[in-house]
């Protein structure tokens, strides 16, 4: 009897599971990212392109407060080089950091100064504070992008679809000033103007710079930023699961042996 209950419950899971996904916005198209699947890993060239899109386009308005330049050279990151186990020594991370002026205080005088960044510095914030961010963007502060890929249902696919999915508003929808129409955005009306344009970012590896390419690459980069330990996690997961399956097999053999002379 209890077995029937179990089967019933399993059937209900299958039927009701997908019903949890809801929403009135257009469903983003699936993208086959390299990091998906049980053995997935980030595509380093894609992360480098994505970082360039972030730095040249998104960073003008969006902060990424949780990331430091050294993270770019962490294992699995866009500029990881196995020669530099310590991410702080990675020349790319150093060069990128040094390109940026960081606000600091002079250790002698206490005056506000700007100095070149080091790998330990966080990505600079485009606005000095939230009030300035709001004032500069029609009253809505652009959200921080550090964990954006995990903070929206649909994740990177949603981000890619949103960035490349701006259209003219359908008949009957009038846009008030400062708003744009995007069918992927819940409600359709979004303050962010279409950020990407063809060839806006020149990719160093020669990849054709279409809006779709830029959107996909920056989505992959944001996924890496939100979940930098994904590769390590999946690799460890495979080892743990293999161990647990073997261990369960051993325990089952042990169990059968212990119980073999007992009727039950």
């Amino acid at each position, binding site marked *: 009897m209890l077995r029937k209950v179990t089967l019933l419950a399993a059937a209900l899971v299958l039927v009701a599971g997908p019903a949890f996904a809801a929403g009135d916005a257009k469903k983003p198209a699936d993208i086959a990212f390299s990091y998906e699947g049980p053995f997935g890993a980030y595509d380093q060239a894609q992360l480098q392109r994505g970082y360039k899109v972030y730095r040249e386009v998104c960073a003008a308005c969006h902060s990424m407060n949780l990331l430091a330049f050294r993270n770019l050279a962490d294992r699995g990151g866009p500029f990881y080089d196995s020669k530099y186990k310590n*991410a702080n020594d990675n020349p790319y991370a150093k060069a990128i950091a040094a390109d940026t002026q960081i606000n600091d205080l002079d250790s002698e005088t206490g005056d506000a100064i700007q100095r070149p960044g080091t790998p330990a510095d966080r990505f600079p914030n485009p606005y000095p504070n939230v009030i300035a961010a709001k004032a500069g963007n029609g009253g809505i502060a652009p959200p921080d992008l550090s964990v954006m890929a995990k903070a929206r249902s649909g994740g990177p696919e949603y981000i890619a679809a949103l960035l490349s999915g701006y259209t003219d508003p359908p008949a009957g929808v009038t846009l008030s000033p400062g708003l744009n129409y995007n069918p992927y955005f819940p409600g359709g009306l979004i303050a962010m103007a279409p950020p990407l344009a063809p060839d806006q970012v020149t990719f160093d590896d020669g990849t054709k710079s279409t809006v779709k390419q830029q959107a996909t690459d920056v989505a992959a980069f944001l996924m890496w930023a939100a979940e930098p330990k994904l590769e390590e996690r999946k690799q460890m997961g495979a080892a743990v699961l293999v161990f647990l399956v073997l261990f369960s097999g051993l325990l089952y053999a042990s169990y059968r042996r212990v119980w073999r002379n007992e009727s039950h």
Partner: protein
Amino acid sequence: MVDPAVNAANPSGGEDPSRRDFIHIAAISAAAVGGAAVAWPFIAQMNPSADTMALASVEYDLTKIEPGMQVTINWRGKPLFIRYRTQAQIDAAVKDDGASLPDPQTDAERHKEGKAQWLVLVGSCTHLGCVPTVGGGDYQGWFCPCHGSHYDTSGRIRKGPAPTNLVVPEYAFLSDTKVKIG
């Protein structure tokens, strides 16, 4: 996970006992290996985190120090002494190279070649970690107020309970006026 008594209390069967035991021993060993593997992340998490490691080296501009003065900066949560020694202080240190020292070292071994005026030391007494005061003690180097250790102008222990000289950290001159510690 599995009680070791699985083996001990195992009901005897008619089969080869060594094969019977093997499965139980293998299962228990696997449990032990699994347990040990699980323990590692829980121990490793206590080691310094990545952001702490990122701050493990600091750079300092030496033009801010006057001759005879010492600055104390925070390095890895501990004080770091950078002392601009006068010629008299260097001479005093070199003079004692041959003296009977608890932890024998020449002054030349404790500074970078050609930079005898710059002494970079971890400002933590080698006895029990107090911060020695500069210019004190019988040798005018450092004096540790906690338990009375006397260091000379080279940071070598001369008198008191501390077993070794003040530690010279790993550092390098990036230029004549800039030093990188760590």
